[in-house]
């Protein structure tokens, strides 16, 4: 990862956006995202999450305020230089499949980078292997499942070797199993330490796996906290229309009744609970 002097992937200063002045979509957002961290953007539908993702991806320009990406302000003049640093994965796996085969889809962005053919072929195969879609390279999108298509989308983005990845509800159209697989991919990417990740999501497990949650409400920032703090705050969860994972709900209920257990994973929750029974 190329480090800039600030160590920040993003710095937002009083960013506002609206399609028409009467109805602001985002107003006065200020926060920063350190390089290498994983942020969840959460909030109820229509709170401006996807719009914010597009601003961060340089696909829309803010009406007011400044977005600084890795030390460089995002402006009309700099967007072409900044965009290659950012990769975006969208919600609908079908509508981001540009090529007629998996191979061509991964190659699409590389062709735009004007890479020599040998390097394109090498990257297509390397990233396809990484996402376990090497055997699907010649397939047409209609022959793939949603989860496989989403893997292709991620491979196509990773092949461009960006430092920042934005997932705009990338898991919301997947079935439970594919969602679990996607989460494992995200965790592995986080573990590699090469990427700053921003995921817009309603998925509790995904939020829990991230470092920090930024909560949007009606276009403004409602909270900036750790996932554990978020899942401990029932008023906030309610405002975001989120439901905490079962284990955490159980711990919260126990805490209300005077039993304070600390646990992270479902297994730890179980391990913390069963001694209470056996001691009786």
């Amino acid at each position, binding site marked *: 990862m190329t480090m800039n002097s600030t160590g920040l992937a993003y710095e937002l200063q009083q960013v506002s956006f609206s399609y028409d002045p009467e109805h602001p979509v985002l107003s006065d957002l200020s926060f920063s995202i350190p390089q290498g961290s994983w942020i969840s953007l959460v909030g109820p539908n229509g709170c401006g999450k996807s719009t914010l993702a597009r601003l961060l991806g340089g696909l829309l320009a803010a009406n007011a305020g400044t977005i600084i990406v890795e030390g460089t302000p995002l402006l009309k003049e700099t967007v072409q230089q900044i965009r290659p640093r950012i990769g975006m994965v969208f919600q609908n796996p079908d509508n981001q499949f540009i090529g007629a085969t998996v191979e061509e889809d991964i190659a699409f962005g590389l062709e*735009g980078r004007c890479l020599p053919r040998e390097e394109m072929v090498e990257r297509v195969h390397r990233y396809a292997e990484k996402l376990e879609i090497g055997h699907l390279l010649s397939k047409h999108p209609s022959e793939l499942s949603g989860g496989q298509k989403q893997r292709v989308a991620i491979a196509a983005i990773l092949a461009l070797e960006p430092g920042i990845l934005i997932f705009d509800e990338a898991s919301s159209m997947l079935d439970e199993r594919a969602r679990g697989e996607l989460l494992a991919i995200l965790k592995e990417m986080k573990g590699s330490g090469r990427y700053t990740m921003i995921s817009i999501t309603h998925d509790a497990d995904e939020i829990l796996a991230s470092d920090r949650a930024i909560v949007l409400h009606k276009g403004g920032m409602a909270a900036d906290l750790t996932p554990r703090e978020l899942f401990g705050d029932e008023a906030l969860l309610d405002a975001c229309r989120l439901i905490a994972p079962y284990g955490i709900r159980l711990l919260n209920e126990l805490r209300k009744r005077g039993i304070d257990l600390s646990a992270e994973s479902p297994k730890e929750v179980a391990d913390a609970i069963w001694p209470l029974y056996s001691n009786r």
Partner: protein
Amino acid sequence: MRNKLLFGRRIDTGSWVHGLDPRAKLTGMLLYLAAIVLVGSWRALALAALFSLTYMTATRIPLKYYVKAAKPLWALMVFIFAVQCLTVDRGQVIWRLGSWALYTGGLSSGFIAASRMALLVSFTAILTFTTTPGLLNQGLAGVLAPFQRIGLKPQRLTLMMSIALRFIPTILEETQKILKAQAARGADLKELPWREKGRMLVSLLVPVTVGAFRRAEELVLSMESRGYTIGAPRTEYHRLGWSRRDTWFVLSYVALIAAVLMLR
């Protein structure tokens, strides 16, 4: 539904036809079209059929796929056959009905015309059966390259075409879904009288069009986020290589045209 859709589906057998330069295949197909148009006799038809069969076998793709490719157009073939039977008045009368008569000439030219159509459709399937859409596009860009001088932008055109082709199955699937949704609400297209069917098709067209626009919008975002800029230089993933075999392939079609002309 999408399983029935053979159009644009590559069938990989690794034959030498698969390995030809897409530009050679495209040129060959254009010449084939010319040859087929020139077929006017039984002998020429037999020759064209023999020629087509030779190449079809060379692709090592089972012939039934070619038959399947031509199948959707059977009504058109029957129509062409019927028109010839109704209008041509050469040869002997076989059957008379009032003021109209069926002539042997009509029957034979009807048969030739319908066979030409069948040959054309099944043979040109070789192109899509043996070439990936990406290669085909690049080939098309190559064939169109000379037109760059008159302001045509081949890369833009072929990108447009490839995206359109890529989304045909997706949009068909969506159409199917909307049809089912309408049927579930009591408007089943299959059970309606013809005039109602027309009205229903309009109410089908609106959601499908809106859906296509929504997809296009998302696709644009995805393309932009992958750094696509209109008119920006790009390198090409597939490498085209013209070999001697490609030249011979194209020449074989020139020979076909010459032979067909001689057998007229």
